[in-house]
């Protein structure tokens, strides 16, 4: 007989924070996010203001995080660039989730669509992400919007696959059958029962996609096929900084650290969410 202790079941937040790293990661990420969102108020100067004569000034009193090859303030650029990088990550996470959910739900719910849609998902997943993104960006042209579109196309199948798999499982669960027995419509079953229950794996996956998209954006910029280079992103900052690896290594270290820390904290948060949502792990704790 399966025993379920009901009162002792740990609370979600307790679980989320049961790994010490997770609250730290969450705090760091929220901090980064806030700083970047409010870049307009926080940044010490206009990110585009040049004072060419101060180029490559190392971090110090004038420029807290140094100045780049145009003598622009790295800190200000970092914050504004973060807005774009995080924006791309978030945009991709959201759009790919929406597309993925739409495809995955339809495939999981309508047997007739399933064959074609899951083959489509398989085929899309067969393209390595960077490769597909490069091809798409090179064809759409490099702008922030296009990078978001391209990366969303790349990552949507991943969400779709998860959604489809979970949908197939959930639609067979007794509570869905109960809903059908009650006469609920397919649409209400889809949203009230299926979507509501796969939201957590999607959120977890979304966090990871957020992270991967930021890495991918940096990769695309590195390869010279990313966002148009006059828009600062952390990726373009690294790419620009590469040339000064000798005189001004901070130019690639600082955005590199910004990316790595953001991606790391996102992954930690994703892991934490997953652990918190996985009842098996919950029991083990």
């Amino acid at each position, binding site marked *: 007989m399966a025993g379920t202790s009901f009162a002792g079941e740990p609370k979600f937040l307790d679980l989320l924070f049961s790994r010490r790293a997770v609250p730290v990661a969450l705090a760091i990420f929220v901090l980064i996010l806030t700083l970047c969102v409010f870049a307009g108020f926080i940044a010490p100067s206009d990110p585009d203001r040049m004072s060419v004569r101060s180029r490559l000034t190392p971090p110090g009193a004038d420029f807290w995080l140094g100045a780049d090859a145009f003598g622009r303030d790295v800190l200000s650029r970092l914050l504004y660039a973060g807005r774009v990088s995080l924006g791309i990550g978030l945009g991709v996470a959201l759009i790919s989730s929406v597309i993925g959910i739409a495809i995955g739900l339809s495939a999981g719910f309508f047997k007739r669509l399933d064959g074609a849609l899951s083959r489509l998902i398989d085929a899309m997943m067969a393209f*390595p992400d960077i490769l597909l993104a*490069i*091809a798409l960006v090179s064809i759409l042209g490099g702008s922030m919007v296009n990078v978001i579109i391209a990366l969303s196309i790349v990552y949507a199948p991943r969400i779709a696959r998860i959604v489809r798999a979970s949908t197939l499982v959930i639609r067979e669960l007794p509570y869905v059958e109960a809903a059908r027995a009650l006469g609920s419509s397919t649409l209400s079953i889809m949203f009230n029962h299926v979507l509501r229950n796969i939201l957590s794996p999607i959120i977890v996956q979304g966090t990871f996609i957020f992270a991967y998209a930021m890495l991918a954006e940096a990769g695309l910029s590195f390869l010279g096929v990313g966002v148009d280079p006059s828009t600062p992103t952390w990726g373009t900052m690294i790419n620009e900084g590469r040339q000064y690896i000798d005189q001004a290594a901070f130019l690639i270290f600082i955005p590199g650290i910004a990316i790595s820390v953001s*991606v790391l904290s996102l992954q930690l948060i994703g892991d934490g969410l997953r652990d918190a949502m996985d009842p098996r792990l919950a029991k083990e704790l």
Partner: protein
Amino acid sequence: MPYYLFRRFVGMLVVILMVLTIAFVIVRLAPGDPAALMLGPEATVEDAAELRVRLGLDRPILIQYLSFAAAAFQGDLGTSIFFNQPVTSILAARAEPTIFLSLFSLTFALLIATPIGIYAAYRRGSFADQSAISIAMLAASVPSFWTGLMFQRYLATELGWFPAAGYGEPGADFLERMRHLILPSIVLGIVNSALILRFTRASMLDILGEDYIRTARSKGMGERRVVLRHALKNAAIPIITVIGLTFALLVSGAVVTERVFNIPGMGNLVVSAVLRRDYPVIQGTLIVVATLYVVINLITDLLYLLVDKRVKY
């Protein structure tokens, strides 16, 4: 079983057809006239028109697609605009470094990641486990080109341990060429080990929680035997499939790594092709890589069947 094989095979063909279609559509989305692109800036309008006819670009899109797909199934992926050579032969010339780079980095990743993953799962919650997953997560968070640049700079240029770039001089023998792949393989392997480590650990954790592990312990056998005989064999199955899936990751990584280390592989080719607007090459690479992925995953799935007697077909 034969029926299952047949079904899987047909499924694979359908996916490959889908891959072809997607690649065709992607490239057709490209703005501009492919003929004008091929001829370059100095071409006249008449030249372009003539070329369009020659390439069949004036025919209805469906016909174009069909002949493209038919040609592709016969191994003809078109002609490179830049090199004016068949895409297949260009790709064939780039296959060696990419294949070996992938193999080496996968081997490297497996050698590093599996034992650590197993150990971490076995001693879950311990300091060793925590450090292993932290390092793995960190490794997965650092852009691989960044790692590549650093390794190149410090391990190759400064310390001279490895060649900094390239794929050996013309006529270099096999060993020499492979020597050039060591450092890139490590760079690429790092990201993969992160993934494989976490995956190994996770599936090992799953297995260690299974009832039959408790049964094994109740038989009075040593922990080593429990882990290596009873758990590992079961954990190996999901690990095999994830290796198939990492192929895409490897190729993605290869694009960046080959670029950093200037290795004349398919990844480098595709970036150059993008910069050269050489659409047939982009298309061909997409198709070849995706097809390989599909085939590799079919193989790992079949391997899975061989190892796991439970799977019914």
